[in-house]
């Protein structure tokens, strides 16, 4: 505040008293047309100006600030050394790519918003490049709010957790349309290439009613690259130890004043067999994937009126895992080796059309439609599983105001159709879900220190019946740098026991479902899951010896009224599913401390405590494979950007995981038992990026560089067809240290 005050005073005096000591000029583009509202500022200061309707500007001259920056979205940024006051004219050139270097320098890659009502974090594309690789399930490694599990050796999929709860309790949306549900919920994130993502928004706690009733612990939205904002051609090549290779090619072009389009192609494969721990099993699956997306955007000139986005995407993925000597060409009953093959494909098409009313930019109508067809066919030793999930989703939204823009509302209706064909060991679990609902969300903001959102929706679903979903968020900002938030919400969903627990297929556990219907409107003889989520969050920004710092504290509780309990404790040869009979809750606490010691160094720290308990056959126990304590620290350093964009970037992440409870194994013979608690351990990741110019960069890095490896990752590995085989008890990395390198090349 004081600084701003001094600067404004300075500005005031500077203009009044030393009007001759100014830098003035005119900014033009194309055929000397004036460019209005361009930003003109002295580099590394807060002294700036904006060009007027004729493109003219005036900025006070100061000898100590000699580098003048002129920027405007869509144009190449000009940096010019100016040594004395006077008149200077600048001509701006079009830039089809956003000048990332200039833009990102001004902003942190992970933004916590002081103003939004909900507890939202945005991960920018810059943050996404920090993770080693390659798809969205791996991109959360540098984000403390999301925990990434270690992949099981069979599917290679990494599950994510928020507030101590796994994927199915987090609602995922793709460009604000519900996504990664049902069939694609378990591994869907790994079928979205990281370079496709423009940004990710993470909302902790109850989500918005606009996106349905299923969200329990939070909501994650991912946005794809925008066809009108990208360079014409983008190429990313990636290679990692263990024979993993990826290639990403993006082509984007602006067709005319209305339309822009993009084609994105991703391919990856791993054809090298790795068995670092010498247990006879592959540490990660052999795989091949082709993934294609085509985007169309209408209304890119930004004029009000109609805008639309269309896209379709398609992938084919094949995986093979199991014993090193497994040969899938030998028919299974006579194959002496344990193996698994999973073939997955998906087609998705979506259309979004929006209309902003003329002269009323606060009033709009939106209509979203999406069709998906997901198909997964696989076997795991002697276990067979097939699922095909087709879905149609429609959401009609109307947003406007009540009397003025301090009172906004969004209302609408949604429709959802899901067809599941599901075969588990040739038992048919096929079904069709149909549901429709209406929602209303009111938000108030006094444009200052208080805002709140109240939402509700009423739904009817053929298996869930008719029900209401209330959600509320409030934000209070008692001081400029202090933000308090609270949220409450209810979520309801149907558990898909096979789809959500695919990691257990790679064991010899029998799936045991209730034999008698426990409820009247569920499936698999199970009731719907219902939970309430309550959250409190506190964020304080401040300065320590002049350096920007922030402290954050998030406390959340999820309370299940009913949950489908996944009981691994009753027997080491079974997994039992049944309705909750007792308590189930997930309490979490996250304490963040972030500081920017110099403008180019960022240090983030996070301590997390999880108390996640469910009543199962042995009592109210901590959830298995869930550390109670976690600590995370990340250091990011960037050298000053040179004129031609040259730069070095360094990033290091340290992750410490406390002890984790393991399922009961006392029923097994001694050599197939495991410890009741998994030991605490840590992993160290680091990455170095050399930016040669704003168009070309090379990166190298390492994951788990301390080479921690879980001993005995596969139980009874010598007898995979026996009763005690289990490759799902994964609490840490299996592969050991992994190094990688890649390059990014942009052509305008």
């Amino acid at each position, binding site marked *: 505040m004081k600084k701003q005050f001094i600067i404004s005073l300075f500005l*005031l005096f500077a203009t009044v008293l030393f009007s001759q000591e100014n830098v003035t000029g005119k900014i033009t583009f194309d055929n000397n047309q004036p460019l209005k509202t361009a930003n003109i500022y002295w580099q590394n200061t807060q002294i700036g100006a904006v060009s007027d309707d004729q493109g003219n500007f005036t900025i006070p001259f100061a000898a100590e600030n000699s580098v003048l920056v002129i920027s405007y979205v869509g144009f190449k940024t000009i940096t010019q050394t100016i040594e004395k006051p006077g008149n200077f004219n600048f001509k701006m050139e079009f830039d089809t790519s956003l000048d990332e270097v200039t833009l990102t320098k001004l902003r942190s890659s992970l933004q916590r918003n002081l103003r939004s009502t909900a507890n939202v974090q945005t991960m920018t594309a810059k943050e996404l490049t920090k993770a080693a690789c390659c798809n969205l399930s791996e991109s959360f490694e540098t984000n403390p709010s999301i925990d990434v599990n270690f992949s099981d050796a069979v599917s290679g999929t990494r599950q994510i957790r928020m507030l101590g709860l796994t994927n199915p309790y987090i609602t995922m949306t793709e460009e604000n349309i519900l996504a990664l549900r049902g069939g694609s919920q378990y591994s869907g994130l790994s079928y979205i290439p990281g370079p496709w993502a423009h940004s990710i928004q993470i909302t902790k706690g109850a989500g918005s009613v606009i996106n349905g009733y299923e969200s329990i612990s939070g909501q994650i939205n991912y946005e794809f690259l925008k066809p009108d904002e990208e360079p014409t051609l983008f190429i990313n090549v990636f290679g990692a130890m263990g024979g993993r290779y990826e290639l990403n090619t993006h082509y984007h072009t602006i067709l005319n004043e209305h339309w822009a389009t993009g084609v994105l192609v991703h391919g990856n494969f791993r054809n090298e067999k790795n068995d670092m721990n010498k247990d006879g099993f592959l540490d990660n699956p052999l795989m091949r994937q082709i993934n294609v997306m085509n985007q169309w955007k209408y209304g890119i000139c930004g004029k009000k009126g109609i805008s639309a986005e269309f896209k379709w995407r398609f992938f084919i993925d094949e995986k093979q895992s199991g014993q090193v000597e497994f040969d899938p060409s030998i028919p299974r009953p006579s194959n002496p080796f344990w193996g698994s093959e999973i073939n997955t494909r998906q087609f998705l098409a979506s259309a979004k059309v929006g209309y902003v009313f003329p002269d*009323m930019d606060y009033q709009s109508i939106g209509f979203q439609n999406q069709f998906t067809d997901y198909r997964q066919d696989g076997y795991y030793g002697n276990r067979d599983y097939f699922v095909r999930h087709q879905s149609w989703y429609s959401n009609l939204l109307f947003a406007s105001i009540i009397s003025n*823009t301090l009172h906004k509302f969004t209302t609408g209706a949604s429709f959802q159709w899901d067809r599941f064909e599901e075969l588990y060991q040739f038992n048919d679990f096929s079904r069709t879900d149909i549901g429709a609902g209406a929602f209303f969300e009111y938000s108030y903001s006094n444009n200052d220190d208080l805002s709140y959102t109240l939402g509700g929706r009423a739904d009817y679903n053929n298996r869930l019946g008719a029900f209401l979903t209330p959600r509320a968020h409030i934000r209070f900002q008692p001081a400029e740098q202090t933000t308090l938030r609270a949220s409450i919400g209810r979520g309801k969903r149907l558990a898909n026991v096979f789809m959500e627990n695919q990691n257990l297929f790679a064991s010899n556990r029998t799936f045991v479902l209730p034999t008698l219907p426990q409820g009247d409107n569920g499936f698999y003889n199970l009731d719907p899951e219902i939970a309430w989520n309550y959250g409190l969050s506190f964020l304080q920004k401040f300065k320590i010896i002049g350096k920007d710092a922030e402290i954050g504290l998030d406390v959340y509780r999820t309370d299940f009224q009913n949950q489908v309990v996944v009981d691994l404790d009753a027997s080491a040869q079974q997994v039992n599913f049944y309705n909750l009979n007792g308590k189930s809750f997930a309490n979490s606490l996250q304490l963040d401390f972030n500081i920017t010691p110099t403008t180019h160094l960022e240090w983030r720290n996070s301590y997390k405590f999880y108390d996640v308990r469910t009543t199962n056959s042995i009592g109210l126990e901590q959830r298995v494979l869930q550390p109670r304590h976690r600590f995370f620290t990340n250091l990011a350093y960037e050298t000053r950007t040179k004129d031609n964009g040259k730069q070095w970037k360094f990033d290091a992440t340290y992750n410490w995981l406390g002890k984790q409870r393991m399922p009961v194994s006392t029923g097994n013979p001694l050599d197939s038992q495991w410890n009741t608690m998994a030991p605490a351990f840590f992993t160290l990741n680091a990455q170095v990026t050399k930016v040669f110019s704003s168009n070309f960069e090379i990166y190298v890095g390492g994951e788990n560089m301390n080479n921690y490896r879980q001993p005995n990752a596969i139980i009874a590995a010598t007898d995979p067809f026996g009763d005690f085989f289990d490759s799902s008890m994964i609490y840490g990395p299996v592969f050991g240290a992994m190094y990688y390198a890649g390059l990014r090349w942009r052509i305008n």
Partner: protein
Amino acid sequence: MKNIIVTLMVFMVGISLHAQEKKNKNAKYDIEVNGNCEMCKKRIEKAALSVKGVKSAVWHADHQDMHLVLDENKCTLQQVHEAVAKVGHDTGKIKATDEAYNDLHSCCKFERKQ
């Protein structure tokens, strides 16, 4: 003749009355408002929105103007000028009182036009 004039007059009054009823519910205006910073923005917009009938008010520091959408059945543009001037900001039509201006936070004390 007299009857015709009376009839015409009634008719015309009718038209003008009718025209008055058909006031714009979403009238757009840009008015000049002077200020400096984010704090000014909050204060100016809050003042404008406090006038019943103002639907949207967005102030731009760089252009020293405010975009307004208001319902002419419920308020007049004059009322918005008055409300903004009352909290200390000069508008294109009404100057704030010196008292109101002096009450502004120091960083909000914009340069007043003579």
